């Protein structure tokens, strides 16, 4: 047992393990890049970089990015603790490797706690929620009394299966899932009787499963849920990701709104788009700049800010970036699109970059000095 442990520790401390890990990472990065051409970035990330293992080309087993980076992290940590020398001559090397460790920690932190979403605002509009790129939710809300505030209950649909039952206590609603597709095509039967079940705000009557899109952002989920029992045909509701409006369902005396929408993330602020400007190089469609003038309402105060390309607005762990815009008719309010990220460990990569770069420089300078000192000794 002891010898096995020794072997394991020896392997963990070995420089050869580092080389093997780096080489595996190189292969993952290379094949993960090529994979993007056919399957898109998200699929490549999931298969190569955020996985524990995979079959390359469908038959060559290979550790995934998670496994390789964990081993590399442990290998580096153990080597630093056991092998590394910490004298001034080795400060460069120590800094390089400490920076890399920090980089791996930062990456892991972002992977676990980072949140990416987007916010579409037209001029004059304000919002305190952002929308997910890939995740969807089934949301239910009753008509609000003042027409402005509404209490929404929502379920993430990512893990829902046929037969699952969903409870919305505030709305007094129980739903069962009859059909669910992560990407669907929606059809309207021209012969269907208007208002016949399943009900849908746009008159869609049928859903059909569709293969996943290359970019998961483009997937449009669809589902059919039922409020009553199987015989109660009238309580079936068809919801499609492309629905512009909510489908209404009356349960007892209460009129409820049901909608399948991109998952919402609450913001700690309310953001209003005051003005959006885009400019192009003269007589061309080569974009010169986009910018959004925004007003942010916090608890007791409000402040104006300008979000431009490469100049985001930050608040706490949130960052708002000018991502793009939606083409609108001339004269209509313009629509700006912001990418929103929430990342508590945002600064870790900055620190690690600084530390590693300083270490590399220091080590390089020290290495350059070495032949000279050797020469001096020889002299």
């Amino acid at each position, binding site marked *: 047992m002891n010898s096995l442990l020794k072997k394991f520790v020896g392997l963990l401390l070995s420089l050869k393990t*580092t*080389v093997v890990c780096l*080489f595996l990472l190189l292969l993952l990065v290379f094949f*993960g*890049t090529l994979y993007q*051409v056919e399957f898109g970035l998200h699929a490549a990330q999931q298969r190569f970089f955020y996985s524990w293992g995979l079959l390359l080309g469908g038959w060559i087993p290979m550790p995934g990015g998670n496994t390789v980076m964990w081993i590399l992290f442990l290998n580096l940590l153990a080597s630093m603790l056991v092998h590394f020398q910490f004298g001034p001559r080795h400060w460069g090397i120590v800094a390089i490797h400490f920076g890399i460790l920090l980089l791996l920690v930062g990456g892991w932190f972002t992977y676990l706690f980072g949140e990416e979403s987007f916010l579409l605002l037209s001029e004059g509009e304000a919002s305190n929620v952002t929308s997910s790129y890939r995740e969807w939710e089934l949301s239910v809300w009753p008509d609000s009394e003042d027409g402005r505030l509404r209490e929404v209950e929502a379920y993430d649909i990512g893990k829902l299966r046929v037969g699952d039952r969903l409870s919305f206590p505030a709305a007094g609603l129980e739903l069962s899932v009859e059909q669910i597709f992560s990407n669907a095509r929606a059809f309207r039967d021209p012969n269907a009787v208007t208002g016949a079940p399943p009900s849908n705000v746009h008159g869609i009557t049928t859903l059909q499963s569709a293969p996943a899109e290359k970019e998961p952002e483009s997937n449009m989920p669809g589902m059919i849920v039922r409020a009553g029992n199987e015989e109660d045909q009238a309580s079936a509701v068809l919801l499609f990701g492309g629905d512009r409006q909510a489908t209404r369902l009356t349960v007892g005396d209460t009129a409820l709104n049901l909608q399948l929408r991109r998952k919402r993330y609450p913001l700690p602020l309310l953001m209003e788009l005051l003005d959006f400007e885009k400019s192009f190089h003269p*007589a061309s469609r080569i974009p*010169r700049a986009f910018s959004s003038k925004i007003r942010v309402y916090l608890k007791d105060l409000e402040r104006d800010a300008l979000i431009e390309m490469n100049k985001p607005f930050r608040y706490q762990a949130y960052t708002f970036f000018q991502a793009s815009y939606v083409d609108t008719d001339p004269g209509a309010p313009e629509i700006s699109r912001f990418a929103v990220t929430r990342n508590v460990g945002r600064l870790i*990569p900055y620190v690690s970059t600084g530390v590693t770069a300083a270490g*590399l420089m220091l080590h390089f300078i020290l290495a350059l000095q070495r032949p000279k000192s050797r020469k001096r000794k020889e002299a």
Partner: protein
Amino acid sequence: MIPTRHRNPALRPSKGLLGLLLFSFCLLVSAVPAQDVESPVLDLSTFERIPVLYNGRKMPLDTYARQTLLQFSGRQNVEDLSASAWMAELLFEPEQASGYAVFLINHPEVAEAIEIQPRDDRRYSYTGLHQALPRLMEKARQADSIPEEQRSQVEKEILRVASNLLYYNGLLQSFSFARPHPDFQPRDPQAAERLQVEMDTDLSALDLALIIERIRPLVEAVAQKAPAEWSALEQDSFRLAGTLFEWVNRFQGAPFEMIPSHAHDREDWISPWMAMGAALGDPGVRGNLQQLQKLYQAYVDGDQQTFDEAAQAVRAFTEQRLPGDRELRVLNLEVSYNQLRLFFWSKFLYFLGFLLGFGTFISGRKTLGRLAWLFLLIALIPHTAGMIMRMVIMGRPPVTNLYATFVFVSWICVLLSLLLERAQRNGLGLMSAGFSGIALLMLSARFASESDTLGKVVAVLDSNFWLSTHVIAITTGYAGCMLAGVMGHIYLIQAIWRPADREGLRATQRALYGILGFGLIFSFLGTMLGGVWADQSWGRFWGWDPKENGALLIVLWTAILFHARMAGMIRDIGFAVGAVLGVIVVMFAWLGVNLLGVGLHSYGFTSGLARGLYIYTAAQIFLATALGVAAARRARRV
């Protein structure tokens, strides 16, 4: 201790090398393209400096002409004409220009498909293609209906040629507003009298547009009457106004944006025909159109003085409309940049430097070394000047597009090599300076024909801070790794050729080690700064985007080499082979990922490179393996 110089009398290149040098010199001199040949009639230097807007950038007409000709024919001159002389003929005497073979058709299948006789130089004149135009347009329509990703190379080529011909057709008409045409001559004496012109006066569209007000009431009045009741005067007035209206409408889309205007508080540029339709009420624009007509007339008459005056007046109008405009201020500089062909001279001198450096490396002769230093330092002058001129013209750091990366990387490689030479003094640095200088500048020329090398950067790249930090760092990293690859080659050749020369091998290995370390530092720094920029711009530090991955591959490969060497998994020869293979990794990051056409960085896209890159990769792997195996065998025998 100064490293031993290698002296091998058998290899001393005294006469042989000097002869080779002389021969190469003659060869290069004969290869120097002739100076731009001016118009046989007029000096075009003022014409070349007229500002034009193209792809959102204000440029001198000289650049516009070069870009257009390059787009059509893949060359910057045609027969014995410079690009601007060709452009002048095209604009002012289109019938003559149509005989020049400027349309490059790469695929013989295209020539066959449109039923024209294939030519050896693959270039065809407008006159030669005229008969085949309907067939070409029909084929283009068919190709256009096929989704882009499913089009064959031939279909793509058909579309390219058709689009060039359409653009050329537009150019043919760009100055037709200034050319007299029988359609604009009054045919009724009363109409001539109303217009206050002689009956047989040659009028152009512009001439008529400027006096059309004189018959406007008549034209407006006839609209109320039945045509049968029109008098001869009314008929002719209506005909003249109608013809003018039709011409203005037909040629609105003709290119050549050279008149600045303002629309919706934004700077806009319009073509002369567009100005005829929309801006004739502006006295300034009217005056400018008259100057353009004068320019045309002076060219046709061969009147140099009037030609220059008109060209200067056109330029002065633009400058007056856009006072203090930065791009207009550097127009003359851009013309000089175009005409000096600085990078060509650098290549020429680097080649000589390389030969002399090679001679120094194998013979150790001081004189050759000094000469090589001299040539390389002189070569650096136009190279540096060219880069500085580009920076001033663009108002940007040195690297903003793929073309500029090659110019910059080659400059860094030369500097690094010369620094190395200063440290080692054995000719190795001289040789690699010359080699990397010429090789990378030659590669850059390949990208110069793709698009405007001084073009605008898109909004996401519009940050001089990041362009001068991340981009400079990553390209410096490329330079380090590329140069390490050159050193790797040299080491392996040395190891095969002179395996017993331990000192020489050690010196090259030390250089290789240091330069690869330099490459690692800057690749890492560039990659991480890229992460910081991405965090600032897109909200995430790392997204596994192809370009990010490419940069990471360089860092990983280099780190693998250093760690494998430390772990004893590879030795000197393995390290050198690794450095050689590292060039493939750099090429993948630099060019390969752009070919994938995916990701946020695909703005550096270029076409037609894939095959070259595959062949290069296969050849490089074969060469590295063969050299490595041979070097290892030789080492065992020693």
